[in-house]
């Protein structure tokens, strides 16, 4: 069931999606790190896979998910503790702008780092 698309609903939906994505990442991260216990060769093998361009795209998307989820958390705190509910639409726009700027900045840094390997 859905009602109407509006700022508050989209903000909540994105918060859920990014929250699930971050939880999924945590499970993957633990799975990757458990290769440490299996010895050097095993860990090097998984690291080689992780440094592939495909994984990098997912890492960049992870940055976006963490940034949105974190900054939207601040938006919710403003709504909860500082009377922000009357300005929730502007707060959502602010969340997208701040998360967007930080995302493109960090994504650019991450991608340029990989395109000019040391």
């Amino acid at each position, binding site marked *: *069931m859905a*009602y109407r698309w*509006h700022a*508050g*609903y989209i903000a909540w939906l994105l918060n859920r999606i990014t929250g699930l994505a971050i939880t999924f990442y945590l499970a993957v991260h633990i799975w990757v790190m458990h290769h440490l216990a299996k010895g050097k060769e095993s860990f090097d093998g998984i690291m080689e896979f992780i440094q592939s361009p495909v994984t990098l795209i997912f890492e960049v998307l992870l940055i976006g998910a963490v940034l949105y989820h974190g900054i939207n958390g601040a938006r919710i705190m403003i709504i*909860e503790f500082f009377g922000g509910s009357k300005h929730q639409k502007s707060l959502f726009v602010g969340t997208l702008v701040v998360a967007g700027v930080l995302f493109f900045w960090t994504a650019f840094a991450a991608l340029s780092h990989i395109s000019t390997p040391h």
Partner: protein
Amino acid sequence: MERQFKVFRYDPESSKKPYFQTYTVDVQKSWTILDALNAIKWEQDGSLSYRRSCRHGICGSCAMKINGKNELACELQVFTLKGVIKVEPLPGFEVLRDLVTDMDRFFGHIEAVKPWLIAGLSPTDKERLQSPEDRKKLDGLYECILCGACTSSCPSYWSNDDFLGPAALLKAARYCFDTRDEGFHERMDVLNSRNGLWRCHTIFNCVEACPKDLNPTEAIVRLRARLAAEKI
């Protein structure tokens, strides 16, 4: 001017599944959606069921989903809408017939928050006076007409209809923030329960849906802050 209305139909006594029926109505410029529904019922199809009462946006009986938004049929004018007008019952509530939904659970939740002044152990023979400043604190809380538009738009309510919902919580705030009321602790158990204040995820559908432009989310976060302060 002729307009088309696509109206949700459901008869529990028939084996037919719910469906939409299209009616063409010759509307006048000043007509509301309720006027059009009345024209359908009185002149075309007497079997169409819907609630109506005051016709002035006060009783809350005619809340329904019109072109995807919860509205009062008696307040929304036909000329403000374009194309075929889709009329459905309020979402999230059980449909009894056509546009009539079961409101028992909704009013049960309202009753659960004790929506009356609890003046404690200080009886008086006179009126309980309130300063204009204290009265002003209730603006945005007392105007609710209990139409159910907010609760029926709430995803938290859709997933769990034991949740009190925005209307009941707004009503609780109306009394909890009344300077003459001494019933906050009496209401605290129900407000602090698993189906109380904490189930709101600040999605703001209720604010979008309210035909009286009230802000139940603001009332909920203020109640949560007060509850947290009391617990600390």
